[in-house]
């Protein structure tokens, strides 16, 4: 199974600032995904990140707010831009190779 790491594990940020979350997989994977889990809620897909192409965003998520990079087959970043308290969530990345494995998550609090 793939091992996925994320940095940072948690952060507290001021509104109006941006945070970039890094996701590293220990093997090459075709598909990587970014999810958001708001407090006490289930997971919602933000976007699919494929290497060499633009990320595909789900309804309600836009590139200006959540720009994503996928420079190679083992790494991706998600930026949460111009943050507001409503962005306080856990952000998880995952990869799909046979089954979907999740990183440990980044717990973001926006004040």
């Amino acid at each position: 199974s793939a091992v996925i790491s994320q940095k940072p594990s948690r952060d507290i940020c001021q509104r109006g600032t941006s945070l970039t979350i890094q996701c590293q997989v220990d093997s090459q994977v075709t598909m990587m995904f970014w999810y958001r889990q708001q407090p006490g809620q289930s997971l919602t897909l933000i976007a699919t990140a494929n290497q060499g192409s633009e990320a595909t965003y789900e309804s309600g998520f836009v590139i200006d707010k959540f720009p994503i990079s996928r420079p190679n087959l083992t790494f991706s970043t998600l930026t949460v831009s111009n943050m507001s308290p409503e962005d306080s969530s856990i952000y998880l990345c995952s990869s799909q190779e046979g089954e979907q494995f999740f990183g440990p998550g980044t717990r973001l609090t926006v004040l």
Partner: protein
Amino acid sequence: ELKVEQNPLFLSMQEGKNYTIYCNYSTTSDRLYWYRQDPGKSLESLFVLLSNGAVKQEGRLMASLDTKARLSTLHITAAVHDLSATYFCAVDTHGAGTALIFGKGTTLSVSS
């Protein structure tokens, strides 16, 4: 619109009892996933069910899949406190290898 519905959303059980969590989904996906999440933690993969009639068991948990009914069940046998967690079911959005759509989760609390 793809939907995944779990019930119950909250389940309070006594140790030693049996119970079943239900997961209904609206897509034609043949793959269904069960995950466990402990408070403040990420998701741990429990089961991947790949075909109609699939049944998998691990310890006190057993999962099954009926693709015709678009229903999966997670059965808990003789619950113990260590099983207290939130359990999610999920299906592929556009077939194998694509993103998942999740149910709302079932928060299980097992007490003595």
